[in-house]
């Protein structure tokens, strides 16, 4: 999913817009005296007698004199170009809001940092407790925090994506959604813009987390960074689409808690972000396989682990990611599934918003 900044900024020339810049209605209205177009008086069936005389003549000439120079503007229709521009403008708004709220960027970073360095350090000491570093479960050469790192990056993306998507509920609460929905663009374009915007913001937040890689012994290798970046973008797209689908059904800001408790936290815990997906009891193994986030975390972990020098035993324990009935899923398939889930969920979200009232 490339978040191309949709260059909708090229000027729409009147000639190619298919409609003369100054529309006939305008020129017509200006030359014709408005008097005489008075609607017939309407008398509703009520007991009171109503006299509804013709409206007072509108002094059209006076009014129109000053208006002509500014009144004519060619307005958007429903073409692809308009859709692309709508996607771009909604995307840009998400970015402006993201960068304007620096405090939110910092606070969003606090939670994953706590998970990685507090929970991660605590778990690492436990995991490696059996016989010290040399004889630990993990074996030599890997810190548990390194193992957790891709999961925590995924968590950052997850929370930011869902938060961005669910901001639609805020937009609805504070009215701005109506400004978007009444515009002469397809609602699908608004939804796609919101999704691409949220995904971009979530990826940016993920990049901040990615910058800490060195602290948990993950090398800053360009291929690794680029791989993780692409995988983050894909995950962010799928998760934002998922959040928008949920947001379409949420009418109150308070319901955000419900989303967190029933969707986001289970998604996070079941994704294998914090523990290997091997040797799990059957019920838990099944749940992890239906969690779409699992298919995004696993490729990121593989990318990270491929950079580490690990003993075969360690690799066997940690590297056991997503498998179906013992068949290890290839990375391409995992990413394909994430993309597919994203597209399907986005289509559902767009349908939900496009429905007329």
């Amino acid at each position, binding site marked *: 999913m490339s978040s191309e900044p949709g260059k909708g900024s090229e*000027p729409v020339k009147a000639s190619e817009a298919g409609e003369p810049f100054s529309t006939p209605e305008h*020129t*017509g209205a200006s030359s014709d005296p408005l008097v005489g177009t008075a609607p017939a008086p309407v008398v509703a069936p009520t007991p009171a007698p*109503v006299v509804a005389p013709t409206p007072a003549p509108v002094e059209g000439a006076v009014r129109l004199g000053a208006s002509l120079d500014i009144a004519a503007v060619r307005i958007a229709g429903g073409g692809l170009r308009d859709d692309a521009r709508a996607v771009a403008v909604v995307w840009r708004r998400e970015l402006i809001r993201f960068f304007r709220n620096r405090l939110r960027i910092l606070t969003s970073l606090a939670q994953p940092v706590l998970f990685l360095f507090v929970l991660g350090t605590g778990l690492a000491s436990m995991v490696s407790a059996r016989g010290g570093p040399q004889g630990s479960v993990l074996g030599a050469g890997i810190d548990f925090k390194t193992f957790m790192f891709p999961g925590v990056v995924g968590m950052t993306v997850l929370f930011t994506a869902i938060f961005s998507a669910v901001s639609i509920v805020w937009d609805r609460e504070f009215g701005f959604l109506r400004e978007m929905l009444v515009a002469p663009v397809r609602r699908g374009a608004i939804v796609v813009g919101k999704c691409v915007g949220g995904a971009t913001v979530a990826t940016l937040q993920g990049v901040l987390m990615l910058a800490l890689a060195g602290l948990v012994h993950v090398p800053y290798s360009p291929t690794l960074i680029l791989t993780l970046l692409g995988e983050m973008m894909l995950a962010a797209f799928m998760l934002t689409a998922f959040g928008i689908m949920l947001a379409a059904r949420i009418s109150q800001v308070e319901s955000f808690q419900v989303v967190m408790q029933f969707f986001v936290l289970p998604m996070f815990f079941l994704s294998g972000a914090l523990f290997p997906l091997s040797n799990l009891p059957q019920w838990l193994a099944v749940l992890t396989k239906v969690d779409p986030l699992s298919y995004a975390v696993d490729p990121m972990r593989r990318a990270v682990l491929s950079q580490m020098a690990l003993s075969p035993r360690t690799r066997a324990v940690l590297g056991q990611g997503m498998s179906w009935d013992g068949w290890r899923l290839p990375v391409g398939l995992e990413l394909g599934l994430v993309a597919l889930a994203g597209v399907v969920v986005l289509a559902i979200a767009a349908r939900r918003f496009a429905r007329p009232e």
Partner: protein
Amino acid sequence: MSAGTGSAVAPAIEVCDLQKRYGEIEAVRGVSFDVAAGETFGFLGPNGAGKSTTISILCTLAEPTGGTARVSGHDVVAERLEVRRRIGLVFQDVTLDDYLTAEENLRFHADLYGVPKAVLAERLRRVLEMVGLWDRRSGLVRTFSGGMKRRLEIARGLLHSPRVLFLDEPTVGLDPQTRSHIWEYIEQLRRREAVTIFLTTHYMDEAEHCDRIAIIDGGRIVAMGTPETLKEQVGLDRVVLRAPDQDQVTSALRDRFGLDPIISEGAVAIHVANGAEFVPRLFGELGVPVSSVSVARPTLDDVFMTFTGRTIRDAEASTSEVNATRPWMRAMRSR
């Protein structure tokens, strides 16, 4: 400019037998009216009368359950996008992004509506200067007062040069001074832009800014005309009498003065041309005991009462369930 082709200018708004029901509730029950191009048309009525529902249908935010409506020549159901590109909207409650600046809000709108880059700068300046916010264009909207936000919304509604501007209760919740300022801007834009204005209000004094008014109650239009003609009927002073025997007073008023009294809230009300001069005559000629008399200048209540035979308060009480949620809030939220 094709001067004098002789073709009549199509009405800016044509509404025919419009109906909208929400489940059991009939919010709009067969409303018909036309608004001429360039006209300023006002919908006047109590809360819950169907004003906002009608406006949201005309703005394509809600679908009618019956009847048809055309805005700028396009059907509001079948040609939704065509209608949207020709209308400007100022909602009853704020729909600005608080985290953006005034200018960013306008630019967002301009991009969404495809205002060409070539005219945008000029247009932006024009509308912002008109509402007196040019100097504040870089200010975050969250720092604006209620009146400034409303002015910014009016500027935004005009940014893409709509044919029809809808103003839903443009002054609601504002202090009297800001209200009169908002009306100055509306008057100004009536003069400077060839735009048809459709507005709703429940203030009689504001309705007087309109070329024509429709009074709406219980989802129906009960009267329509210029403010002058409506005032001729209802712009009479209201004289309220309290008496030990109301029936006696009522019949005396009928027989001796030829008036048509209305009994409301335990008092007898009549409408006369000059209340202050009428009272001495009343004392001289009525010949029936009266405990108190009061004279009042006409209010919306009187307008309303003249056409519906009940007070606005009664009307709002009986339609309060309709108004429990604003129609388009409901349309947007309860899904």
